[in-house]
């Protein structure tokens, strides 16, 4: 599938901000056999005093931008074309979750793809007894890690209500879980917490979902903004799989990946600091159009 994607994020500050500095994780990555980004453009207004790009540990494209003089707004405008390839068929053999621990212990690898980065609690995806118990309640004995991912993802989809009013960007996973409501970010963090709690390494994926579904299919949830889902490591044979608990499905060709992290903090679209007082407000709009071949 070919997509043309546009994203606008506008920040407006109530008072001029001095020494604004942002890290943007917005440019999608190339993924061998899965995703190609043939062209992209990222425009920042006003023009930053400095701007450069680098690749972070997990392989994400990061844009560092700073404005040295006071500014009252920042407009971020991203457009790119993405080619999403059909995932090559994999032999879906996955060990029982009880066995996963031994497999992990034998790994000699702390490179970016290693599941060992994704086993321990992180700030946004802590391991909490209530969520771990919830996950266990939805697992049958002898379930493979892969099936467990699907079972837990389905359980979250079933139990949680999608609601953009229930939470905000800083809501903790546990709060959203207790409310049984939230947006894709909350769904993803809850699922990561559940998976880690039962011993399955899991991380956060930031990206986009196509705006209009293929003919005959329903419009998916989360298309009007940036999207987030989960990836989980289900054993050395299969490696990583990506599951979207907001829509109860594995992420396929409708999904465009920006990048990966242990949780939101690692792959937040915009991380920023500034000197000064006052409040900021932001607006976001997303459009993901399939390109007719």
């Amino acid at each position, binding site marked *: 599938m070919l997509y043309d994607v546009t994203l606008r994020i506008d920040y407006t500050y109530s008072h001029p901000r*001095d*020494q604004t*500095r*942002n*890290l943007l994780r917005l440019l999608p990555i190339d993924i061998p056999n899965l995703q190609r980004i043939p062209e992209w453009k990222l425009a920042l207004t006003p023009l930053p*005093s*400095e701007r*450069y790009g*680098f690749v*972070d*540990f*997990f392989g994400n494209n990061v844009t*560092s931008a*700073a404005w*040295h003089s006071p500014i009252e707004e920042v407009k971020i405008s991203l457009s790119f074309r993405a080619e999403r390839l059909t995932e090559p068929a994999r032999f879906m053999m996955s060990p029982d979750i009880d066995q996963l*621990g031994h497999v*992990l*212990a034998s*790994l*000699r*690898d*702390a*490179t970016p793809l*290693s599941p*060992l*980065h994704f*086993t*321990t609690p992180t*700030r946004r995806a802590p391991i909490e007894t209530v969520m771990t118990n919830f996950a266990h309640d939805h697992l049958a004995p002898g379930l493979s890690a892969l099936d467990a991912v699907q079972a837990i993802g389905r359980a979250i989809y079933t139990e949680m209500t999608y609601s953009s009013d229930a939470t905000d960007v800083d809501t903790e996973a546990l709060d959203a879980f207790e409310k049984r409501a939230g947006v894709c970010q909350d769904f993803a963090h809850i699922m990561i917490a559940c998976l880690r709690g039962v011993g399955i390494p899991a991380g956060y994926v930031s990206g986009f979902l196509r705006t209009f579904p293929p003919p005959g299919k329903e419009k998916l949830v989360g298309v009007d903004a940036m999207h987030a889902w989960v990836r989980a490591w289900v054993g050395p044979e299969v490696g990583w799989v990506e599951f979207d608990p907001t829509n109860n499905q594995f992420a396929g060709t409708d999904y465009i990946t920006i990048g990966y992290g242990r949780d939101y*903090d690692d792959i937040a679209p915009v*991380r*920023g*600091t500034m000197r000064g007082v006052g409040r900021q407000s932001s607006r976001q709009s997303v459009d993901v159009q399939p390109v007719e071949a």
Partner: protein
Amino acid sequence: MTRKGEVMDQRTDSGAASPILKGYEPTQGVADELFDRDGSLRPVWRPFIDTLSRLSVDDLTDKFERGKQYLRDAGVYYRQYSEDPLEEREWPLSPIPVLLHEKEWAQICDGLSQRADLLEAVMADLYGLARLLGEGHLPASLIAENPGWARQMVGVPPRGGQYLHFLSFEIGRSPDGSWLVLGDRTQAPSGAGFALENRMAMRRIFPEDFPRAYTHRMAGFFENFRDALEGLSSFGRDRPHQIGLLTPGRANDTFYEHLFIARYLGMLLLEGEDIIVQNGEAMVRTIEGPVPLGLLWRRIDTSFADPLEFDPDSQIGVPGLMDAVRMGNLAMVNALGSGVLEARAMMAFLPKISRVITGEPLKLPNIATWWCGDDSARSYVSDNADRMMVAPALSRDLPFDSNSETVRGAEPELAHLLADPAPDLVGQEAVTLSTTPNWRETPDGPRLVPCPMTVRVFAARTPRGWTFMQGGYARIGPEGDPTALGMQRGGSVADVLIVSDKRVPEPAGPPPTTGPGDGRRVRTEAGALPSRAADNLYWLGRYIVRFEDAARLLRAYHLRLATTDTPEDPILALISNFLDPVGIDTGQPIPDGLIQRLLWAHGCAAKIRDRFSTDGWFALNDLVKTARQMTQTARPGDDAARAMSVLLRKTAGFSGVVTENMYRFSGWRFLSLGRGLERADTLAAVLETFADAKAPESALDVALEVADSAMAHRRRYALEATRETVVDLLAHDAGNPRSLLFQVREAEMLAEGLPNARTADRPNAIIRELLPLRTQLEIGTPADLTTKALEEVRATIANASNRLANAHLR
């Protein structure tokens, strides 16, 4: 070999020869610093014990008090967490040092030097090719799950080539007399500054020829390190860059040390907000604009270093700092991510890694450690639980810390912990630490008691290799309890003396002391004043004068209150109405608003303690203390008036100490500008109210009192005060230091001395405010200075203050 009987005899001998050792009985099977395994007094202690033995208990108590007094005078303190974060605790120095022979010390340092190189190699591997993981010498999970491992640093070479520059090692003596490494501090080791203060105190307690002349000096260590830092900062550059010490701020438990080291080494003491990063270059915000920074000695953990790339909640970091590191522009001591080496489980693998990397075993072993992620190690720990200390594998606590997460074999929790299959535990051999003499109160009076101890050793990288502080910092626990070494739970610290058989030559050059706590070592005040420091100095000046002026008004009020029987006295009402809008309630003898002004001043001063003398700091503390006490006792009228006089005298004392002794540098200018502008503003405000045409005539006397000019008025005019004479004296008289003109002139002169005062001979915005005002006051007459005109004067002063802030303080 000595037979047992002889051992006893020897000890009795020593005891008899040295009454000071009466009752000093180390536990069987525990090594002791004073007595070796055979029970003989170690020779290195002999002369010292002889010295002690010549003194009575009273003499000793006097001596020890001298050390305490020194520490109090120098203002050495630490903070205890979990209580009032700003409460300062007395430094718990044990007056009995630990003595080690230079030969033994040389062996320790040789072993630790090897260990330091090993740690550097491991660090370089973990942030480079990670061969240790690939080859299975270190479990990958210990790194990937280690919160101290900074992914951001992978593949980022440190500026200058090395990751580690300043380390400390916690070592202890095991029962067989050999030394063991108990922990490595690689993130931001603390204690070196305190060690130096301990030494200063110790030299006051024991000025005797022994140990003083036979002890290796510590100062050289710092000099060498400072030179190494300068080399690293200017490495590959054609112009010098600043060096700073990055502190989390004054609420940190070891802030005193940060202050001390910065002052001692003449480096900038910086907080996160002092630094900005632009185009990958870290810079100090100064009154002259941003100045490039070449090196940061950080005393904050990696996770707080940069809110953009590490913990987003950090308030003490520098946004973009990682940019400067990534681009190779900023050297860090130590490199970000060095905390990864502090995980306790590392100890389980370092002995083998040493053989893998260097082909040699560790010269100085570390405490035996088993990582329970390995099944056989786990069962070993389980089977031998009674002689184990167990803790989370990634714990960064030192095993003998009182607040550590360690569970000891005897505790029932341990079996429970070990039953859990999660592999995140380590077991460490529960070694019994050696004991050293400590002076303690006992039922038979104070005497020497054997108490467990560990020693902290400091190492610094220089171009010629690792150099070690000659001496250290011993942590001492209560008798019989080796688990309470931390100061946070009643432990104490002691100086560690490295003693030679021969006299140690005095170092060349002048002695490095100019008095307690002051800038001990004169270095050129390199570079510009940080904006934050300037801001605090400026506001310190303003708040102190604001306090002083309010106190004068309150004194005027209470003096009149004492002599009037009409509470509706118009003058009293005038003063009350004047003070009320600025938050001072004349109904309170020592109003809260008055104390608040003082606390604001104190708050500013606390942030810049490195910039004025200890005497000044104590004078200010004393002022605050006195004022607070008075709120409990002062009664309206004469009593409150007297209280104000006391406070005014103490304020004059503080101001005198600070302004008299402060080097006439930019910092002094900002302090003086703060004082001057505040004073000018009050004068204008006071004249506005108390010399107003509608005010009762006797209000003029209040104006004279507030301006401390009643005497001058009498001498100059020899007649009743009129509006004309009072305004003339308080506004137009250039010879009166308490006049508006005098203050504005001073401020203008001070502003002329600031950076960028003039461009192509045109004065800057601050001077452009002050110059017309000065002229107006010089050529005008009291008749021109109407109440309305005074209002404009105040607006001009406010403008000058804002312009100053815009130009230099942000």
